[in-house]
């Protein structure tokens, strides 16, 4: 959609001056090939620097021991490389609780984001391709809910779940993660564009049931949209903090985000050991999987977001 190789237009000519006869256009720059601008590049580079410097700071300081953190310059390495030791300490501190948090996070992402994507795909398809009683009400309710601040729901959800005996269990984190109104909206707009109604009618004429039509005909067509929704819900669950913070008391069920904050808070408690080097190294380990996923899957983000944009 967006990052594909530039299509070679039939009229594309090598824009090199002084080679062979000039054809028709006297100008070397066109709408397709605008002149490069050094000034614009510099300005964008400033924003880019602003985005990357903190991450560089994090990486550099993950190589320092607790002592060196306080004594060496923040944006350069200290004399001794402490990275391997830091990673080992992070993974083994407190009987390897960090690894447990990582496993919890993976559980919440697989169950929460996977379930959220499944519900959004089914719901978006149903809204895009069927009329049914109450459809407008469904639409109004879901759109209205998007504007409700998540934190406004958090306290009552906590109280409800504690009555049901769900708090302090993984369910308390997974169940609320299953609903992604934004995912439903994306899937809906995507399905409306991607699945021709004639195709559904043809499948029915051939005698395929609803489930089979959906699974064998529509799902492949929806694949790009599904990947986009999955990426969004994955980031949302991986980065979730407020919900697990209030739902979980037992550190054994913490995801990485809540765990890291607990480590950071440890220094402020009486008799707590300051482990800032582990907080920093743990932070690097926490963002690494997502950064890798971003770099590999950025194509999908592009096309998925564009499908949700306004098209008349």
């Amino acid at each position, binding site marked *: 959609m*967006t990052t594909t190789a530039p299509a070679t237009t039939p009229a594309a000519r090598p824009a090199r001056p002084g080679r062979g006869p000039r054809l028709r256009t006297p100008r070397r720059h066109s709408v397709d090939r605008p002149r490069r601008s050094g000034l614009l590049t510099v300005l964008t580079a400033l924003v880019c620097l602003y985005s990357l410097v903190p991450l560089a700071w994090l990486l550099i300081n993950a190589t320092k021991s607790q002592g060196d953190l306080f004594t060496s310059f923040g944006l350069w390495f200290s004399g001794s490389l402490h990275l391997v030791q830091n990673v080992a300490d992070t993974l083994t501190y407190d009987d390897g609780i960090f690894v447990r948090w990582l496993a919890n996070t993976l559980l919440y992402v697989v169950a929460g984001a996977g379930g959220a994507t499944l519900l959004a795909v089914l719901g978006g398809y149903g809204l895009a391709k069927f009329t049914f009683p109450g459809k407008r009400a469904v639409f109004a309710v879901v759109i209205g809910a998007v504007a409700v601040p998540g934190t406004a729901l958090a306290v009552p959800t906590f109280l409800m779940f504690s009555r049901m005996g769900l708090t302090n269990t993984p369910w308390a984190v997974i169940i609320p993660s299953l609903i992604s109104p934004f995912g439903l909206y994306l899937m809906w707009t995507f399905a409306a564009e991607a699945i021709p109604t004639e195709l559904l009618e043809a499948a029915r004429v051939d005698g395929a049931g609803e489930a089979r039509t*959906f699974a064998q005909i529509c799902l492949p067509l929806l694949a790009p949209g599904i990947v986009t929704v999955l990426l969004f819900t994955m980031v949302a669950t991986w980065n979730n903090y*407020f919900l697990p913070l209030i739902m979980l008391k037992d550190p054994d069920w913490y995801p990485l985000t809540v765990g890291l904050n607990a480590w950071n808070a440890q220094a402020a408690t009486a008799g707590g050991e300051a482990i800032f080097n582990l907080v920093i190294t743990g932070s690097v380990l926490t963002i690494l999987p997502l950064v890798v996923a971003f770099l590999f899957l950025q194509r999908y983000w592009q096309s998925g977001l564009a499908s949700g944009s*306004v098209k008349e």
Partner: protein
Amino acid sequence: MTQTVPLPAAAAPARAARRRPVRRGRWTGWGFVGPFMAVFALVFLAPIAYSLYLSLFRQQLVGGNAFVGLENYRRAFADPQFWSAFGRVSLFLAVQVPIMLGIALLVALAIDSGRLYGTSFFRISIFLPYAVPAVVATLMWGFMYGTRFGLVGNLNDALGISLPNPLSPDLVLASIGNIVTWEFVGYNMLIFYSALRVVPRSLYEAAEIDGAGQWRVVTAIKLPAIRGALVIATIFSIIGSFQLFNEPSILQKLAPNAITTHFTPNLYAYSLSFSGQQYNYSATVAIIMGVITMVIAYVVQLRGMRKGA
């Protein structure tokens, strides 16, 4: 639920509209939408209803749970702590959101113009902070803000100056604004950029033939074309500002004097619930914030979509 009776399929005129929804069994669509709505009812509708219920009651030492009508709301409207928190996020909204969206828009336009060297590198690098959890972003910036071993401290030592402490009560809101801006510039940039990519290129060619300059193309073609994306991003940012919680709550450990328990409305609701056990009043504060957010989001949407669309 509704009173509309859809026509039976046989009576529906067979128009060859491509995007016409299928009319088959009346309830078939529910089979697909049902699962989402069931969970939605559990985690959205039920808590909202429960919030409303809680806000009308009060736990009393004598007599237990008592119906008090709008007493909690009256209390909230007269509560200086609530209003100071509300004022703080409103100020945050007025300053941080325009800055963030402005930078995002400029970068999106720059990248879309095709006039940069290294376009794809810029696009992914500026988007990258979105992959960083708010907790990690806040801890990282919080360390850098530190005057002891943070960058601020380093600069002070190296240059022999004394920069103001970003975690002091006067500056902490601006410091939080910087963290939020850092996290979301790239995300908003990508929303704008994706919207710009679907503008038909032929419009630009026509504009060039008409002799429009770069600036004119931006104001007359590009900005109107991405109006929808601008409105959506503005609404999301407004909701985000009113919900401000993660960054101040994590920075509290590093700047306990600067960030009070009622620094933002959400922090206030959280403190009321989890340190004060005042669930009824906490639910009331949450509902008031939810209603204000919805109203403002709705107004922005109406105004944004109407202007000369």
